[in-house]
């Protein structure tokens, strides 16, 4: 296969057809130069960017992921970009928890007329990624722990709960929930951040206990979370048939993932 030069970051971009992709075309028409590290995938709307793709790109070794959408109000599909924003915010939060640098993921609004801004943004982003260095999961000694965490993140973002929450955020914060009430952005963020942490921890537990029975204490040390918290997750996962108690080692119960049947 093809050689990729050392320290030449690999950046994948998801651009919406109507604004950012057009802005990228305009950069070309105007001959605004930027580094050749970006590979663009055209989607009709930034709202189509599934957080799954973002994490998948990182798992496969991307050093950076760039998402471009229309400025708020300009979306060809009225509100798709606003949903993109929520999804990316969630993905970034997850990356932060996993210890993978969330700066490697960037969302920008770029209009069809902003060719120069597009080029400038890509220059900056490429520099930033270059400074961050290669992704920790690439190269001769990939950090398997981080890879493991990324997989946890991926499992979390494809899960029911976070997707459901993200799909409701605009309604609950901006339009009013079924009771006609609004939550403040702060209240919402606190709530969803809790959900994100919980989903991450649970998915991590599932991965860790996949084929290898582990105790609450062992899990707590891996997760860097207090044991009582971990136990709460275990309770939830058992109740939903995601893990089962495998054995009791002395006074210490050990748990095993049932992921295959459970999910």
């Amino acid at each position, binding site marked *: *296969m093809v050689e990729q030069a050392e320290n030449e970051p*690999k950046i994948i971009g998801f651009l919406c057809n109507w604004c950012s992709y057009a802005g990228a075309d305009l950069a070309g*028409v105007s001959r605004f130069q930027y580094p*050749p590290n970006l590979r663009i*995938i055209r989607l009709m709307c930034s709202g189509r960017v599934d957080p799954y793709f973002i994490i998948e790109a990182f798992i496969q070794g991307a050093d950076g992921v760039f998402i471009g959408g229309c400025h708020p109000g300009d979306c060809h599909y009225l509100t798709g970009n606003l949903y993109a924003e929520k999804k990316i915010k969630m993905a970034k939060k997850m990356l932060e928890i996993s210890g993978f640098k969330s700066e490697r993921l960037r969302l920008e609004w770029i209009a069809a007329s902003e060719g120069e801004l597009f080029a400038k943004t890509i220059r900056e982003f490429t520099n930033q990624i270059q400074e961050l260095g290669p992704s920790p999961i690439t190269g001769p000694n990939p950090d398997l722990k981080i890879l493991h965490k990324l997989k946890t993140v991926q499992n979390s973002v494809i899960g029911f709960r976070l997707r459901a929450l993200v799909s409701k955020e605009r309604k609950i914060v901006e339009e009013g929930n079924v009771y006609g009430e609004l939550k403040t952005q702060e209240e919402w963020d606190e709530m969803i951040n809790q959900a994100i942490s919980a989903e991450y921890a649970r998915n991590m537990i599932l991965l860790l206990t996949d084929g290898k029975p582990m105790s609450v204490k062992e899990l707590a040390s891996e997760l860097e979370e207090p044991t009582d918290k971990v136990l709460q997750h275990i309770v939830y996962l058992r109740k939903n048939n995601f893990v089962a108690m495998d054995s009791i080692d002395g006074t210490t119960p050990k748990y095993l993932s049932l992921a295959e049947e459970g999910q």
Partner: protein
Amino acid sequence: MTEDAVSPETTLSPEAANGAISAASTPSKELQTDTTAVTTTTTSKSTDKIGSVLVVGGGISGMQSSLDLADSGFKVYLLDTLPSIGGVMSQLDKTFPTNDCSMCIMAPKLVATGRHHNIQVISNAEIEKVEGDPGNFKVTVNKRARRVNEEKCTGCGVCAQKCPMEAIDEYNMGMVPRASIFIRYAQAVPLVFAIDPNKCIGCGICAEECKAEAVEYDQEDTLTDLQVGSIILSPGFKPFDPTVKEEYGYGVYKNVLTSMEFERFLSATGPYAGTVLRPSDGEVPQKVAFIQCVGSREDPDKGGSPYCSSVCCMYAMKEAVIAQEHTEGLKSHIFFMDIRAHGKEFDDYYERAEKEHEIKFTRARASDVQEDPKTKNLFLTYPEGGEIKREEFDMVVLGIGFLPPENVEKLAEQLGIELNHYKFCNTSSFSPLETTKPGVFVSGAFSGPKDIPDTVAQASGAAAKASSLISDARWTQTTTKEYPPERDVSGEEPRIGVFICHCGINIGGVVDVPGVVEYAKTLPNVVHSEHNLYTCSEDTQGHITEMITEHNLNRTIVASCTPRTHEPLFRGTTAEGGINPYLFEMANIRDQCSWVHMHEPESATQKAKDLVRMAVAKSRLLEPLYTMELPLNKNALVLGGGLSGMTAALELAKQGYNNFLVEKEAELGGNLRHIHYILSQSGNGTNSKAEDPKTKLNELIEAVNNNDKIKVYTNSTLKDVEGFVGNFKSTLATNGGEETVEHGVVIIATGGHEFKPEQYLYGQDPNVMTQRELETKLAGGEFNANSVVMIQCVGSRDENYKWCSRTCCSEAVKNALKIKELKPDTKIYVLYKDIRTFGFREDYYREAAEKGVQFIRYEDERKPIVTNEGGKLKVSVPDFVLKGDIILHPDQVVLSAGTHPNPDNEEIGKLLKIPLNKYNFFLEAHMKLRPVDFATEGVFLAGLAHGPKFIDESISQAAGTVARATTILAHDSLEVEPQISNVVDENCDGCAYCIDPCPYSALTLIEYKRGSAIKKTVEVNEAACKGCGVCQATCPKKGIYIRGFKLDQIAAMVEACLEVS
């Protein structure tokens, strides 16, 4: 008329009457492939009317008219004097009141116009001669020599890069030089260069550089004859040239600019890439003054025009806001006479500009501008608070007004139309779309200064009028493309052909194209790869179809420029090769590769290979897709029997469509029943017989009642609606009973009503009344006061009702003039916040002032106080000059009560799933470019239901809804794009999380029986879905996807992108 007459089976439309012919000539979904069709067919039908329309002027107005006409079965010739269409809107940076990027919202319309196979854009051309009669005109057009062959030029731009001669860039208001071979702007349509005859020195370099051999120095002007049934004039306007106003120093002082120049300063594609700089020294200005009404609302002796240009207040606020956003530290200061923010939600914008953006507003006309010759700073002199101030600024922007378009007299003479006293097109309130010449219609700023939403509504309205005249000839001049039968490739292993374009030297000069070809051959399933000088040239396209046969290809990939402009073309080529057009994929190796990595050929080549590999990865997983056809009911439902509703119903009937007109009152007419006289739009004062509202009302009611295509339901309301575009089923509550009607579209024209004041002793003192009540008295000869105080903005622009009701200032002036006519000695005082007699209505404001009507301003903080002291009315209002109070003792107080939304709006909105704005008027799909559409397909909006407006504006909108509706009704079935959502029943468990994020309400949760169990799933309304994919990115179960953007297809691209190590 019987009920049978309007049932779909017995429709009287000409389409149905000529069923066989129209079915043959109605295009099914065909691909738009420029001029490279294999076969074109034109069906002709015997009629003396010609089914084609000439649209003069390709700005946003002309484009909208053209698209509406071409989509409803007419051939369109779109003429523009410039080498490309797009008009003034293409030069704007942002648009008010949403601050949308102008090019972002306009580009889809530009591209659609340029690609529409029934729109022929004739650029760089002008009318030479017009002969004939309505329905059959012969127009001779002079197409000026472009000196570049339109068929051959690929728009690559190498010529302009090599051209040694610089010329003036009119698009950038002369502030950036361009080559003498040029396109106006990067997204220009047609994307064909032109040689500027004034600057070209004939060196011959461009011809040497042009690999497409498109430069033809010997081209000459050519005359062409066009046969058209009707003509729409939308030549736009000419911006006022402030050079004549020497007091402002424009053209002398470097830092005094026009608002059009400033617009380019703000634009990312402008001279300073969006950061505002001073032309004198390139410094960032800190203080910018905006002087309003330059060339507008002026004594003609002072070089300007008396009318108001209607849009300058809003664009000045927009420019002031955007300048502050784009440029750190910049502060804007607007000098104005009245803020005329009379459009929908414009006052909210005004409030944000003042409060959030802290823009300074000073109510004064600056008398002059002086320059400090050393610093090039500017001094403004203006009156404030009774004294004269002098203030220093870094930059001054002149809010220039609208003039009639260039060469307007010649145009008027050629077409035989009358101009008004300002040399704009002469129209009247009840026929705002007609010129004085039958068969010739008007739209946009040519009929008077107006903003973009009003222009777009009027453009659709003009399309309706232009086509109703020739509706018998629908689909007679249009063409349909036919493709060879499609080969069934199911079950075949992918066989991919990859065609890689040199684009002259645009790609080949940077990327090693033969190297990419060799690389492509190594990729899985690629059985053929080759390179072409220009893949888009006609001969290469023919060659591609041959290669498809020769190599038995079942997938094609073109690696060249951008799919945004060229995907439809190559899909057409693929279809011509007998392959499903959706088995085509594109790699953008020019705009997003060779052009942006010009100095890194190796990396660019590597990137091109990667992009081709990614395209191949997706191509392997592509599936054939097919346009779907859904049945279409050609009837319409019109809600509201006022002026807008009746106009819509009649226009629909003229187009040949039966409709149901539903009015909740016992009689038709709505608000028009209360209007006794109007301010003529043709400058004829308040008494023109041709514009008598009572006569017009009776004519309209009679026409509606006598039209056998209209079924009127009075005392009726909408009770329930099922279905979607093409197939609605509505239940009407009518005279105590119920009736169900079936229809394909809905037009909402449910109107509004005059506010019932809660203040100023209204309802307590018999001498306090609304303008409408005064008008009734005046018309009925019951007026007998010696002095009258009129109070503006009652139930408008106040703390409870924040919107401007748009018409009240003119209504007050109208009634004041009527009083002066009947009883000239009557003292009249108008208490106002801003006088908003925009456009030509300014004439009447001036006339009222000249006749002694006194206008006294008040502010929100100190509103007038009306009391009754011993049976006599007393009004006190603060005096800004003398700092005291003015006390008046009028016989009557007349309140200019605002226009309020119909209380039924909420209910109707829920039934049809259409939104309201925060003031409970209906909210259109887009405030700028889709003023009469809803995001929900097949539902349209006109009149006061949209917001307060004048008679002419309601008529334009109502006709506009008919043009928009006709783009659906003119077809025999509803065609649905294939790249939309598709539910995977096995995976969908009915969690319904996708439903809220769907911007088009296209998803519904349904239950169905599988075996004995009740299952839930989501159903896609294919007529409503636009394919954005938000549902897919939300779904946790892989239960829904967008065809052409499936999970595995995108994932394959991600994987292919990163598979190198």
